[in-house]
């Protein structure tokens, strides 16, 4: 069945696939992970703050995000963001939001739900003696969090956070519903244009597979190293 396949189409489209597609995918992954981690940490802190209402709000947010299919969130967000922006800025018409910004905001909000659970587990894994020692030295609650608890929670959870980021890397391909040329979108555009569906989708799958495998291997190495240091 491979007789009439033309793998040269891949070679010809490599610059477009990687310089446009993959760089978009990596940028979206990286920024979403960073934003998700920051926002997620804030949510985790809210949940652990001891203020009931704050904790409830954060908990509801996490449950809400985790019970929706990501594709739907991406889709809805793309249509809602212009109106939310209009409402926030008081503009007279829906503000224009690029597909990148829209998908970035979506992923940050969605991933924050998952990252927050990881960071919450990380913070809870730090023994009570650590913040107590920080307090005894005169550090305030926020200083103790910032300089003592969070760095340790982050370090302990780094392998899990990175694993979640690998999942995120694969999930970013869902932006195809907005016809955005991420890596998969770019591959699919070439596939449609040249009528080379099998070749392009095989290649795309191989690329996702290799990158994810290499990254997972790296995470396992890191995990072993952290285990030794501790």
């Amino acid at each position: 069945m491979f007789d009439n396949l033309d793998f040269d189409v891949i070679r010809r489209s490599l610059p477009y696939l990687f310089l446009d597609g993959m760089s978009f995918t990596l940028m979206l992954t990286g920024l979403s992970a960073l934003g998700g981690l920051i926002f997620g940490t804030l949510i985790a802190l809210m949940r652990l703050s001891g203020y009931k209402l704050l904790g409830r709000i954060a908990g509801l947010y996490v449950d809400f995000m985790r019970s929706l299919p990501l594709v739907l969130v991406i889709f809805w967000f793309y249509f809602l963001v212009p109106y939310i922006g209009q409402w926030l800025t008081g503009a007279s018409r829906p503000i224009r939001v690029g597909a990148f910004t829209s998908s970035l905001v979506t992923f940050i909000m969605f991933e924050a739900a998952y990252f927050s659970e990881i960071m919450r587990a990380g913070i809870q894994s730090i023994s009570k003696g650590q913040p107590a020692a920080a307090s005894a030295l005169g550090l305030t609650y926020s200083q103790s969090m910032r300089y003592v608890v969070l760095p340790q929670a982050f370090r302990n959870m780094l392998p899990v956070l990175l694993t979640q980021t690998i999942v995120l890397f694969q999930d970013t391909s869902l932006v195809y519903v907005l016809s955005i040329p991420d890596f998969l979108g770019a591959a699919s555009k070439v596939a449609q244009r040249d009528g080379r569906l099998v070749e392009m989708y095989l290649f795309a799958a191989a690329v996702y597979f290799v990158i994810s495998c290499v990254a997972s291997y790296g995470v396992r190495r890191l995990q072993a190293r952290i285990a030794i240091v501790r």
Partner: protein
Amino acid sequence: MIEISHVNKWYGPTFQVLKDCTTSVAKGEVVVVCGPSGSGKSTLIKCVNALEPFQEGQIILDGIKVNDPKTDLPKLRARVGMVFQHFELFPHLRIIDNLCLAQEKVLGRSHEEAVAKGNKLLERVGLTVHANKYPAELSGGQQQRVAIARALAMDPIAMLFDEPTSALDPEMISEVLDVMVDLAHEGMTMMVVTHEMGFASKVAHRVIFMDKGEIVEDAQKTDFFGSPRSERAQKFLSKILSH
């Protein structure tokens, strides 16, 4: 320096962990607190720097009321050093950074100042060569000496110790006690929860015996070890001294 009067504390609605505790520690005085496990020693000492809140009574530290809602607790705690049973060094920071963190963030000292002070104290506890290591690379005794140095770096007006040697291997106990004895001889105000009666008889001025949340005995050292005292303290003493 430390005035504890009629302190009552409950965990939950029914469990009273401290019962009408009253005592004091004068400037330059070394007071040893002992008693069976679960008697409330840690709780009492943690009330002094407000790591634990209490419901009734009051504690006054260097003229400042600890349980006054208007008291700036971080500022108050910065003035009292505390050493924990399990050292509680910050494992993600090098030894020298363990000593510098609070100096810089709480006292506002410059990094150079903090490092200079930190190095001076490391020298004092004999650990200069370990300045750039991480806590996990040090033995328990070394870690506890770092913890003492970290507390001293804040120029505390008093030091609280909560069983500083009970998590240590026996051969490391004396290196930590030596540092504490030196401190006592220099006139540091100290409140020390410990079962090291050798330390108590060497440097303590007073010994407090606690049982079931009560201060059962509060006596001058010579009285505590010598003359008649409560039956509970006697039993406890004979138990730990026979070890």
